[in-house]
């Protein structure tokens, strides 16, 4: 008996009872749609996060001082928690505990050929540039020359902060094109102009030496604000910043950028052991170095775990769907007992009957699977564009979904089909 005839038979059977067919398929539809949606969203999230991380500096290593024996608080969270709880854990840090310029010099001597850039930052605080009614919100930071490289800033006009500025601790600034437009009307007019910045208690005047291109993050970290109120970074020399805040020389943290051919995680390990020598005898502090790529790896690990959890949930839903198909097949076989008897009287072998019902179960699952795939694609594409990173499920996962739904059909259709195949023809014909 040819195969096409079996498929035709199954399809006519399903069409004659559309509602029942749809309800039967529901489990498969939901299971497959869930898998496709979640895989698509997962892809979108992973690539959004990695590209954001990459943007924030995939080759970067953060070196910072942390307490050796943090009480109560978890390692790595000490700083944020301490601040938010209203007392400063780092408050009793002495100037001798800080990473000195001398240590950094030694680090350069040792690992200079693996380091692309070493950037330091000293936060001064939030401020506002104002000129008449024009204004621009700022976040003022003191930086060194390498900061440009480690943050991959794009300079549009002029130059960045350099060593001479730092040596002389002058009031010069590199501003965003946004600030330049707001205050001077046009980005290229800002160069060599003076800009007044209102801080909490004082007003500082700077000479603009460069303008960089402001880039929005792919994944906004802060809540949305009006376009003109967006706070952009305002860079001044590190030494100028320290003079203003009264911070001592030396720093609590800095950022390293590994050279192109260097593994950031390996360099981070070396840097950490380099500083261990200096901080071996320090009772309170040690120096930790963390690379961005280890954070990305951890992200991947988390996504992996999430995927396994989702696979389990989808598996359960498909199992339930499969049992639903099996149940409806058993019902259908009982209803069609006389038909089965007639077919046998007309010469159908047990094999003919078995194939007929297995094909029927496979067709149910396949149609359910295809509907599920379409639904999953719609949800995945829609959901990922809401997340701001449109993604489309790969051909691989679609093929897997198709194959898997057919396998469910074979697996859960076999038992009912075999039951039909083994019916006694006379009893089947006498069935009322």
């Amino acid at each position, binding site marked *: *008996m040819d195969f096409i005839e079996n498929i035709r038979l199954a399809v006519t059977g399903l069409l004659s009872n559309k509602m029942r067919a749809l309800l039967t398929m529901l489990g498969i539809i939901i299971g497959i749609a869930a898998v496709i949606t979640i895989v698509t969203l997962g892809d979108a999230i992973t690539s959004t996060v990695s590209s954001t991380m990459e943007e924030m500096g995939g080759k970067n290593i953060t070196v910072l001082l942390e307490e050796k024996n943090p009480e109560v608080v978890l390692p790595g969270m000490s700083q944020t928690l301490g601040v938010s709880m209203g007392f400063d854990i780092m408050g009793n840090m002495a100037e001798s505990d800080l990473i000195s310029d001398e240590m950094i010099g030694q680090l350069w001597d040792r690992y200079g050929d693996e380091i692309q850039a070493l950037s330091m930052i000293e936060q001064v605080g939030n401020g506002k540039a104002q000129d008449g009614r024009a204004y621009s919100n700022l976040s003022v930071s003191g930086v060194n020359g390498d900061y440009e490289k480690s943050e991959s800033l794009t300079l549009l006009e002029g130059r960045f902060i350099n060593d001479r500025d730092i040596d002389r601790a002058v009031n010069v600034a590199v501003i965003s094109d946004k600030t330049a437009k707001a205050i001077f009307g046009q980005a290229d007019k800002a160069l060599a102009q003076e800009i007044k910045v209102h801080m909490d208690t004082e007003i500082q005047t700077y000479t603009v030496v460069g303008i960089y291109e402001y880039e929005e993050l792919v994944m906004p970290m802060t809540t949305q604000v009006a376009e003109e109120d967006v706070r952009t970074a305002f860079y001044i020399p590190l030494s100028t910043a320290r003079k203003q805040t009264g911070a001592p020389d030396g720093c609590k943290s800095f950022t390293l950028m590994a050279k192109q051919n260097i593994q950031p995680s390996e360099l981070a390990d070396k840097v950490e052991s380099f500083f261990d020598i200096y901080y071996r005898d320090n009772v309170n502090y040690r120096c930790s170095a963390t690379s961005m790529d280890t954070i990305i790896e951890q992200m991947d690990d988390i996504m992996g775990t999430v995927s396994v959890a989702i696979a389990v949930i989808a598996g359960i839903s498909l199992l339930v769907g499969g049992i639903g198909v099996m149940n409806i097949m058993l019902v259908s076989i009982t209803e069609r007992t*006389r*038909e089965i008897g007639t077919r046998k*009287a007309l*010469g159908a*072998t047990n094999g003919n009957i078995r194939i007929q019902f297995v094909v029927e179960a496979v067709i149910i699952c396949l149609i359910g699977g295809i509907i599920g795939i379409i639904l999953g694609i719609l949800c995945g594409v829609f959901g990922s564009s809401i997340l701001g990173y449109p993604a489309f499920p790969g051909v691989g996962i679609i093929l897997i979904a198709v194959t898997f739904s057919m396998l469910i059909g074979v697996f859960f259709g076999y038992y009912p089909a075999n039951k039909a195949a083994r019916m006694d*023809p006379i009893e089947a*014909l006498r069935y009322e």
Partner: protein
Amino acid sequence: MSETKQVIIQMKGIRKSFYIGQPHELEILHGIGLSVRKGEFVSIVGASGSGKSTLMNIIGALDRPTSGEYILDGVDISKAGDGELSGIRNRKIGFVFQTFNLIPRTSALKNVELPMLYSGTSKTLRTARAKELLEIVEMGERMSHQPSELSGGQKQRVAIARAMANDPAIILADEPTGALDSETGRLVMDLFHKLHREQGKTIVLITHNQELALETERILTLRDGNFISDEKGGQV
């Protein structure tokens, strides 16, 4: 009836019993002997419950006798396996049932094609043959109709066309007119006569209708699992 015609159904000492609970074994057929020649039109009559259908199922290779010997067109049925029986039903037997047993939601044409589907006939051949058969039973205009759109007599004519599909040696009809009014039953009966006369089919007919039985060449009367008479000149 010529003596040279070959015997197509040869039964000796056929017994059939059913198990109904452990200690009881109910014997329905008590050693039936029967021989039917090719081209004969035989009717089997008898009271309800006398075992006519049970015997018919054995003749049609749907069931195996508990004991006894049955040779159908040279094949020993008592020794055949399930697969072999399917093949015999498919090619040598054409069933016509009292309740028609057409496959629901399937056109008359597809119903007639069904036995040819199981015998592996090609699509073009089986469609052509099914159309030809439906013309013979005068159902050519109703080919694409589903069973639910046909009258009882029309259904039975489609069922007869289906029974003829693989050009079987024997047509077995168990009360084919039982569910039809006498007029429609007449039409169906005429069709059997036509097949017998024009195509030389061997036909075994079970009926409660004495008039219809009298039209056949031979009447076998069954009572309590034994033949008690074989009228119109045949031998038991």
